[in-house]
């Protein structure tokens, strides 16, 4: 599984304001770029095709000569392949991904664990899976499909507002998928910490039980607590909203666990477009530099 170390990456979001705000980070600090391939597509007459950002990011590629990795969301790796409409959707998806990979030569491709679609309906965000063998097999099959396009495939551990099975057993479930799919792990430390905050678990113990030899990439990001007024119970839960600075607890996890991931090739500092202004950019750049200190290239 060992490949070359890429360093610290930064996401390219399809948002001109974001790209302008983060220009210095993108051009100066980032060692590689992470893109969501779906944001490079649009649907026309029932088919998926390139949108304008495909061309823009291709220019980034040629100008920077920096590596790209893909980070998908809506392939819905927890959806059975025989679900209504899925065979056609999968075919279109892989065709488009193949086209993107021909351009960007992704060093790896990651997908969010979970499922976003069922019976033709869309949740848009990944929902949790039960921890049983059928779910393991479904995820492994879909990751196998992605491997036919991008040879190195990872899945990202989730942060979910509810669970179907015992959350303390999630590391075992993730490890079962890693073994069955023979794939890598995108260890999202904010997701892991968020899950442990919401379900009263020990984050270091949770992360330490993962098969760290499978970790190829780490994400660090921030989030926020939900407004108590949103729920009748007035309960507040931590959200994986990528809308704030990386918490110290997440930095501590990075410092502790990055050295224990022998196949780690990259770390990405995530921040969602639209959640910061020009005044926040120096702090964001400092986060990228801090990640580089913890994970020198």
């Amino acid at each position, binding site marked *: 599984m060992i490949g070359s170390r890429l360093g610290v990456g930064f996401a390219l979001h399809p948002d001109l304001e974001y790209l302008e705000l983060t220009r210095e980070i993108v051009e100066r600090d980032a060692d590689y770029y992470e893109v969501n391939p779906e944001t490079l597509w649009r649907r026309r007459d029932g088919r998926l095709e390139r949108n304008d950002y495909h061309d823009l990011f291709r220019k980034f590629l040629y100008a920077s000569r920096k590596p790209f990795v893909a980070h998908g969301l809506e392939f819905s790796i927890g959806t*059975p392949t025989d679900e209504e409409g899925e065979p056609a959707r999968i075919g279109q998806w892989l065709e488009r991904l193949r086209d993107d990979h021909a351009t960007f030569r992704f060093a790896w491709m990651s997908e969010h664990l979970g499922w976003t679609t069922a019976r033709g309906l869309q949740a848009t965000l990944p*929902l949790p899976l039960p921890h049983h063998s059928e779910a393991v097999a479904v995820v492994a099959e879909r990751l196998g499909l992605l491997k036919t396009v991008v040879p190195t495939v990872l899945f990202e551990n989730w942060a*979910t507002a509810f669970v179907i099975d015992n959350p303390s057993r999630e590391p075992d479930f993730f490890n079962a998928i890693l073994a069955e799919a023979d794939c890598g792990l995108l260890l999202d430390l904010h997701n892991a910490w968020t899950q442990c905050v919401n379900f009263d678990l020990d984050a270091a113990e949770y992360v330490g039980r993962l098969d760290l030899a499978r970790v190829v990439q780490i994400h660090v990001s921030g989030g926020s607590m939900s407004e108590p007024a949103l729920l009748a119970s007035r309960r507040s839960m931590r959200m994986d909203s990528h809308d704030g600075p990386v918490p110290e607890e997440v930095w501590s996890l990075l410092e502790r666990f990055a050295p224990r991931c022998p196949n780690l090739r990259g770390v990405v500092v995530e921040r969602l477009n639209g959640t910061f202004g020009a005044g926040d950019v120096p702090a964001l750049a400092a986060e990228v530099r801090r990640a580089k200190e913890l994970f020198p290239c």
Partner: protein
Amino acid sequence: MLKELQGRLLRAVLDGEPFAGVDPDGLELTRLVVKKLRFELIVRGDSAMDAWFDRDPAAFTDAFRQYDREIPPRSWFPKEEADMFRGWCDSRNLGPPASVK
């Protein structure tokens, strides 16, 4: 078994119904996030809808709430969702004033 579970669970999320064995707070928070993401798809997918929201958030929100109640989410492409919303608004003579169309 998994397909059946996912179908029932997604309906529970979208409809705000309880689901046996699942924390209702987590389910409700997920339902709200799904709606927020759907709203964001629409304003990202159509600049006129974005302008309508900026100019008259109450009217936009009323229309969106009604749309979301009547039409279940089936797309994750911003323009596709925005086009569906626009078509729904047109069918009810709702939507942005001509000045932002």
